[in-house]
């Protein structure tokens, strides 16, 4: 488990980037927290810099979009999914279980 930040430091619609074995970003949207690989599967770009709308994040470079719940891309130019990770909220802090990467299921 890696501590991401305090709950108070991640308002709805925002994202925070963590350095784990790979960069991982944690998103707060629709009243929930989601953690996915931060690097877009299309090209080197940080999804934490992207645009969050509902349960989707749009890559800031080439507008590929990913479902935060599954890691699946929803449009070109991305073709491959990103991995998702469990998020735990405890004592006012957000944690990511970086050991449990979940490969997206089509």
């Amino acid at each position, binding site marked *: 488990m890696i501590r991401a930040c305090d709950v108070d430091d991640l308002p709805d619609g925002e994202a925070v980037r963590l350095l784990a074995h790979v960069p991982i970003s944690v998103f707060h949207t629709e009243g929930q927290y989601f953690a996915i690989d931060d690097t877009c599967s299309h090209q080197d770009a940080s999804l934490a810099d992207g645009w969050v709308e509902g349960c989707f994040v749009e890559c800031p*470079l080439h507008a590929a979009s990913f479902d935060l719940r599954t890691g699946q891309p929803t449009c070109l130019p991305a073709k491959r999914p990103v991995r998702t990770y469990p998020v735990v909220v405890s004592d006012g802090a957000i944690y990511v279980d970086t050991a449990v990467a979940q490969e997206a299921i089509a």
Partner: protein
Amino acid sequence: MRTVTIVGTSLAGLRAAQELRAQGFDGELVLVGDEPHRPYDRPPLSKDFLLGKIGVEDLELADAAGLLELGARWHLGRRAVRLSASDGSLTLSDGTELKSDGVVIATGASARTLGDGLAGVHTLRTLDDAVALRREIADGGVRVVVIGAGFIGAETASTCRALGCDVTVVEAAPVPLSRALGPEFGAACAGLHEENGVRLVTGIGVAALEGDTRVTGVRLADGTVLGADVVVAGIGVRPNTEWLDGSGLVIDNGVVCDEGCVTASPNIVAVGDVARFRHEGAHVRTEHWTSAAEQAGVAVRNLLAGATVAHHANRGYFWSEQYGHRIQFAGQAAAEAEVVEGSLAERKFVATYLRDGAVTGVLAMDSPKPFTRLRRGLARAATVPAG
């Protein structure tokens, strides 16, 4: 509508096929493409592919399973040579005749060429172009002259430099990219060339290419000769419409269509670089990746409806990568522009273009997060209600 034929199998054509199926078309789907390759992505051709960082398989826009899922009949390596708008009949270069209820024209554009077949002179538009150019520059150490300092020219110069070539860029206009970005920001982007060891010659045209069978140099209008082993022409494209002569469609610098990419025949739509669609009272043709991707959904919706029920929003979004910098642009440039974050000197900035106080466009270098925020603001302002 029982049969739809899509002419063109690049991004716009493939997206049209995907949209047809996604929007419920379960009839016969036929795709015709003049290149022998499966649909591939063009933006990396001048960047990571030319650099050798990625291979052909990385360019594919869909894997084999994804293509099979479309349940389409493919005619690859064959070009359409004739269309009759009145009955939707098509003739291919091998003589095949196809009858369709609906036609999607997605034939794109071709690079303007120079040099009449002189060896060593290249363009960069197709996968075959990129493979041929890469063969000549991969080991570095060659003198490359790039003609045209637009985005393709600039990206090619950047990649050739990264491979260790001696690179000169020649641009006829006094300031590169000034039509797309305005003079101040065009100059800021063009400044990257000299900062990275590439010579930039502006405000002078090319008189001729020198060499008998293979190019040896580029002669400029003032008589100066730039020695060259390889020349790359990045001097724009022309829409691929010759095959539509006599079709009955209106052709004028592209296939003329309405706000929803529909031609005067409601059973024929045009998407991507070849489409000259109506937008804010004029007809425009955009040569951007995102336009091709977005037009497909709109055009297919209108084709299946038999009428223009949706409009293309034309968000004017494009990007470029040069010398390790990421340039992003959305909307329309205007005479008035200001830096709103960062600075030109740092080569990290966000600028907005303004007309009558309203933001019409956003340009950014190495600032994806604030750019995305501003781009989304523009998109909301420009959203066109589906009629």
